[in-house]
């Protein structure tokens, strides 16, 4: 399938659909704007027609529909998702973050190894204990950059800091499916330590292979559990050296950094040259 992307003739238009219970939409829009994308919040009550014609979709984090039934389950079947599913199947870029990632998995868009709306994987309750985790993490690109359109402009094995904040972020699937996801390059990012080492301690939720993100076969959909948009500015960086370098300089402190790289990858894939 050809990946559908704007080629810089006009500002790439990105829709950020919000459902009742979404809560990270403002940060997501801000990160999109910072990398030159024209981002618009689209309220669920606007109806699916309001989502037509965008160059990409970014589903933000939160607790859509209060996680009723399961995280992402109701939103995945919301009429709004009809437009996103149809667009994804045409090759339009779709990024889901945290609850947005859970929605994409429930909608069957990632890993996309079954029919739409028939999930073959899940972001299941964390292990051990099923507790909500809120923790700073690092993720490493664990597929070739061109495996996923959104990561094409990242460096091979690039490490990006983010915040994990979820109760259901552990990749789950049948043993057979997990093996297939690993072998077929569906696991786009893995948790690692700040030096890039994959260790059990670096994974906050017991996810097999330290999986933090899934992409589909065609590489136009990316579902990532940790929040890049919550680690997207210099003042948010955990690395003291980064903040030290900006000390006393407001412009530097407020400059994009860290997790903004993921959004920059989306923007470059959409033809934004900024």
């Amino acid at each position, binding site marked *: 399938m050809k990946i559908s992307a704007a080629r810089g003739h006009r500002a790439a238009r990105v829709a950020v659909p919000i459902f009742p219970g979404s809560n990270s939409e403002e940060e997501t829009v801000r990160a999109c704007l910072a990398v030159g994308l024209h981002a618009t919040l689209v309220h669920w009550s606007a109806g699916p027609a309001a989502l037509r014609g965008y160059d990409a979709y970014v589903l933000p984090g939160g607790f859509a*529909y*209060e996680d*009723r*039934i*399961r995280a992402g*389950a*109701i939103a995945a*079947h919301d*009429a709004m998702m009809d437009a996103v599913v149809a667009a994804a199947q045409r090759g339009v870029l779709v990024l889901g973050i945290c609850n947005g990632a859970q929605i994409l998995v*429930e909608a069957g868009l990632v890993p996309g190894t079954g029919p739409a*709306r*028939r*999930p*073959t*994987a*899940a972001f*299941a*309750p964390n292990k051990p204990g099923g507790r909500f985790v809120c923790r700073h993490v690092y993720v490493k690109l664990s597929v070739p950059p061109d495996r996923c359109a959104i990561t094409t402009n990242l460096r091979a094995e690039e490490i990006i800091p983010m915040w994990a904040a979820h109760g259901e972020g552990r990749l*789950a*699937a*049948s043993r057979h*499916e997990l093996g297939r996801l690993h072998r077929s390059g569906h696991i786009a990012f893995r948790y690692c330590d700040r030096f890039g080492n994959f260790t059990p301690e670096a994974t906050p939720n017991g996810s097999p292979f330290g999986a933090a993100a899934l992409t589909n076969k065609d590489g136009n959909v990316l579902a990532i559990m940790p929040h890049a948009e919550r680690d997207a500015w210099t003042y948010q960086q955990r690395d003291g050296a980064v903040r030290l370098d900006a000390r006393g300089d407001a412009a530097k402190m407020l400059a994009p950094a860290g997790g903004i790289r993921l959004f920059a990858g989306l923007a470059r894939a959409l033809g934004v040259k900024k």
Partner: protein
Amino acid sequence: MLKPVAYSVELTIPDNEAYTTLVTLVRLGIVCRKLERSEVWVFDVEEARADDLEAQIRSIETIFNPNKHVLFALGSPRPRPGEVWVGERDEDAGQPRPAALREVRLAGRTLEGVFGYRRYKGWRLWESEGEVASQEVIANAAETLLCNPAFQVIIT
């Protein structure tokens, strides 16, 4: 000797989750007029302690809150007509279990005489007023929405 004892905990206040689920099922074309949700607990309890179990459960507020719940024992540890139970798959099935049984701790409390438990979300469907859903409808609802087979199982 352990025996399974099942309890259903249901809301006495309006159940928004059940309402949202019903609306979604209808949108997906499932023939369903009414839907009830419950938390189902199946405890493996020593036969001699089974009579005490309900009082123990009623005293754990994270399971049972008398201001908004009704709790009752199910006659058998199986779903009722029109009902499906959805729970997480036991990923440790087939793995060696500890040789010595330990009493279950829930919400910081030891459940005396209880050595295991399983927890499900129970969904009871009606096709029309007074007529519980058929197995076909239940299976369709589970496959379409209520269960993600990647990590959950159903009991009908």
